[in-house]
């Protein structure tokens, strides 16, 4: 079997482990069905394997480690959508995929099917270390210093059925990036890691702790500036151990590590971690260069050859076709190789459901990945799909094929690229529906040239304070609230997840759905009227403050 580009290749040892995990879960399901396990006991066990009980049915969340899959795996998602669900799946902001109409009694079969392509649902929920997320342009971006996926894989393995950290006070999310341009929202994670090359040729890590969104949005703080590779696992063990011992367990809203870091202060937290490290047998936890190299060897690197003058050919096509040009402008990113380019496929058609893909689209994306990008696909934290290594002279053909299946929306990073959580249509915790308002906004701003005119502007929508739609981090954020049984939306402005992360501020009283859509249309108009040359929405907001936007939003209400 050939080694996949972009993710770790399992061997028989990994497969045996996975089979054992599936056997264990199947027995847990059987014990639940025969009543040996109560629902209260089963719930944490099923969550640890990604199985929720949602509004309408069970929901299964499947891990996509560091967001990278190969075409075989994508085809398996398509198969699962057809065979066990209602012919579609939903890609999430944590680079996972969720299926919404799953039957408990069929989950062991689904897990066995997934295992045939080396996939699983381990630790995609529950109070444990969750699926590790990474940069969607990893291994391809021109601005990258190190490919973070090798260490992301190491963290995936290290955290898998960790004996000490499987019953933490609350869920625990780690993100890792190898680029100075943070594309993983490192400072909004329980632990955010930025990797860079060290002097000795090995990698060093800058580590943030205590970030998060949810009910209490907090920006993570730096705990260590330069952790050497061989100390990476020891350091993480120590950070999580302090949290496991001292994190609050009396109130689930105060149980995340961010609350503990706030309570102790970052300096005291660091001291506590250093005290652990001082007692630990560091040799025991050492991540040796051999281990790293062995794991790296399981990743194939694409052979990037692009003869001729691909850049020139691309430029020609862009001149000939303005629609293509518009798409290239928003939906691509520079590749480290001059003849290649990174293409982002939008899962946000105007008026569609952000992040949903049908089995036919998944199959088609798998084919296109084989044809144009070494069979590799990535899921972005903005719920889109990346083909990482496309030859520039073949980009036009890729775009033409995408158009045929309605996957060529030119809106990445623009107002139509809306992030929305499942909301009240699926989620048992929601106050309001997130999808319908996303669809209305998407339709309102559907026109590609209007979107290009508006420029970089991100809308994020959450159906409740848990903030799965990252509304705090949206340039415009919408939070669903419940006013006496009615769905209302609170607008926040100025959030951002990129470098210089900040949390949006609330604009004013919450509005009903249609009024919210109108208010956003008015404040976007106001921005277009007030911006100076070259300004983005955030630039104008930073320059003028939110008063003029508030005035526009609440004008007629």
């Amino acid at each position: 079997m050939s080694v996949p580009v972009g993710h770790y290749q399992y061997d028989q040892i990994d497969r045996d482990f996975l089979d054992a995990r599936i056997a264990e879960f199947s027995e847990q399901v059987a014990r639940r069905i025969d009543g040996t396990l109560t629902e209260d006991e089963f719930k944490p066990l099923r969550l640890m394997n990604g199985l929720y009980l949602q509004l309408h049915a069970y929901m299964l969340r499947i891990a996509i480690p560091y967001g990278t899959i190969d075409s075989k795996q994508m085809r398996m998602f398509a198969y699962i959508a057809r065979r066990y669900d209602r012919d579609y799946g939903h890609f999430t902001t944590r680079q996972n995929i969720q299926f919404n109409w799953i039957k408990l009694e069929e989950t062991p079969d689904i897990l066995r099917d997934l295992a045939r392509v080396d996939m699983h649902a381990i630790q995609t929920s529950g109070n444990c270390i969750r699926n590790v997320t990474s940069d969607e342009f990893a291994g391809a971006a021109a601005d990258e210093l190190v490919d973070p996926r090798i260490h992301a894989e190491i963290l995936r393995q290290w955290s898998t059925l960790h004996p000490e950290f499987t019953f933490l006070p609350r869920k625990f999310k780690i993100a890792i990036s190898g680029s100075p341009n943070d594309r993983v929202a490192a400072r909004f994670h329980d632990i955010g890691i930025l990797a860079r090359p060290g002097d000795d040729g090995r990698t060093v890590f800058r580590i943030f702790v205590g970030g998060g969104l949810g009910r209490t949005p907090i920006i993570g703080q730096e705990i260590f500036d330069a952790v050497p590779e061989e100390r990476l696992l020891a350091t993480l063990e120590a950070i999580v151990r302090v949290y496991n011992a001292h994190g609050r367990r009396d109130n689930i809203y105060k149980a995340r590590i961010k609350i503990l870091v706030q309570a102790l202060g970052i300096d005291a937290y660091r001291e506590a971690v250093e005290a652990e490290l001082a007692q630990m047998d560091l040799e025991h936890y050492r991540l040796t260069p051999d281990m790293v190299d062995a794991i790296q060897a399981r990743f194939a690197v694409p052979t990037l050859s692009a003869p001729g003058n691909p850049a020139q050919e691309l430029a020609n096509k862009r001149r000939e076709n303005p629609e293509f040009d518009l798409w290239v402008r928003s939906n691509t990113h520079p590749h480290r190789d001059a003849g290649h380019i990174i293409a982002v496929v939008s899962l946000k058609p105007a008026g569609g459901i952000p992040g949903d893909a049908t089995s036919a689209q998944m199959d088609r994306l798998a084919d296109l990945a084989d044809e144009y990008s070494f069979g590799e696909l990535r899921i972005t934290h903005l719920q889109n799909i990346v083909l990482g290594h496309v030859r520039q002279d073949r980009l036009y053909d890729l775009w033409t094929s995408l158009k045929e299946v309605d996957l060529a929306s030119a809106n990445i990073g623009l107002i139509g690229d809306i992030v929305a959580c499942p909301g009240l249509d699926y989620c048992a915790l929601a106050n309001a529906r997130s999808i319908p308002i996303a669809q209305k906004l998407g339709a309102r701003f559907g026109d590609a040239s209007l979107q290009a005119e508006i420029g970089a502007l991100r809308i994020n929508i959450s159906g409740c304070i848990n903030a799965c739609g990252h509304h705090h981090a949206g340039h415009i954020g919408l939070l669903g609230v419940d006013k006496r049984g009615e769905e209302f939306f609170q607008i926040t402005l100025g959030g951002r997840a990129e470098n210089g992360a900040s949390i949006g501020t609330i604009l004013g009283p919450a509005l009903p759905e249609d009024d919210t859509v109108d208010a956003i249309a008015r404040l976007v108009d106001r921005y277009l009227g007030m911006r100076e040359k070259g300004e983005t929405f955030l630039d104008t907001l930073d320059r003028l403050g939110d008063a003029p936007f508030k005035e526009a939003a609440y004008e007629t209400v």
Partner: protein
Amino acid sequence: MKRAVRVGTDEKLVLTANRLLDGVIVWRDRLGQWRPHIGVAEKLDAEQVAPVLELAQARAQADGVVGVYEVAVKDVEPPEPVTVRERIRAYGPTVHPEFAVETVQ
């Protein structure tokens, strides 16, 4: 998931749960059977509900359901949930009309 249910003057309560094996939303009818349509749900007065709920919860494992709780409905035929959340549970996600659950028996 359990929320305090307030019952207005022209409102009644019905019992709901998910089926253990497949997660399907079910409603408790007059005979104590769990069925997938709210149209057949037995409407109870606020004063009546406590013992019925307690019994249904105690029998949940034997009946193959999970997460039994009460839902406020308008006292019409068929009963219609008061909150958006419960309407979505009863009739299906609003964004996929093709998955609508019909309400007739």
